[in-house]
């Protein structure tokens, strides 16, 4: 089970990076970045998964005394929660920059932006 999630995460990372590197359109690159971001999150959650255990929430089925033996690792989940929110912020920032770039040049083709090229 953890392996399925890990493999999916790695495949998503690779797909996203392929999209970033092979596309010329800035908007497509941004979408590809979000795909890679999802892959990283999936890998992190999968690493914290322990077989046959449940979510780190204490209730009738997970009494406090047995918590350490019944729950999966809560730390990666907290990390990923943070990472998702920051990912949204980064995407919004990239979209805003893409809009400004389109305003200045009238194109979203990354190969037309040659100012920093050498």
């Amino acid at each position: 089970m953890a392996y399925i999630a890990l493999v999916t995460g790695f495949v998503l990372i690779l797909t996203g990076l392929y999209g970033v590197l092979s596309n010329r359109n800035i908007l497509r690159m941004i979408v590809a970045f979000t795909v890679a971001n999802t892959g990283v999150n999936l890998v992190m959650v999968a690493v914290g998964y322990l077989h046959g255990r449940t979510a780190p929430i204490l209730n009738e089925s997970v009494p406090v005394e047995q918590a350490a033996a019944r729950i999966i690792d809560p730390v990666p989940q907290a990390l990923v929660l943070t990472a998702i929110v920051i990912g949204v912020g980064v995407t919004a920032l990239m979209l805003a920059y893409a809009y400004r770039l389109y305003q200045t040049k009238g194109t979203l083709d990354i190969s037309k932006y040659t100012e920093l090229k050498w």
Partner: protein
Amino acid sequence: MIRRLFVILLLLGLAGVFSALLAGYSPDDALNLTARYYADQTAEDLGAANIVTAIIVTYRGLDTLGEVTVLFLTAAIVGLVLAQSRRKADAPKRALPHSGELLITGTRLLVPLILLLGVYVFVNGHLTPGGGFQGGAILASALLLVLLTDPLLRVGHRLISLVESTAGLVFVGIGVLGILLAGGFLDNRILPIGELGSLFSAGAIPIIYSFVGLKVGAEFCSMLANLSETEDL
């Protein structure tokens, strides 16, 4: 052609690294030391049923403050970058096609329910899956639906920044109260811990997470509003 070859070579190398990681990965059968501490101590120390929330709001509360600051900065920069291209209030409005009966009626029906769900998610963040960040995102999705129905709508930026700055100040204020009344910055034990699993439990965690939810919602709303108010080219 050469470029594509380089890309594929690079990705193949990376895939090699990943498969080596995967081959060397052996799943744990017990929690590691940190996770075990959180699992054993959360209920006793903080009284929060949701351990992830306890970690985010109290154990690593300072990180969450930093995260909220990063989000605030992002929202501010999006506003700054898009400020010059904002549509003038008196600019002639482009005639848009009608949004459609389904979308309009659906929005009227769903927006209050979405807001309610968002509030429910962040108020119960210490008991059920969910919390401030998720609830805030749900709140902002209500604004997204409204903007889809009426793309030319002007959102009140003053209200958004008022909610955001108030929530941020309350968050930091509760953190400082933790220094004065309890063990340290952002300590949740300034209020009674209560009974595990009830709504009024876990000390200050529900209050802090509710304000985080409001703040995150306001930040996402301001990003959405800024992006939607740009001029159509």
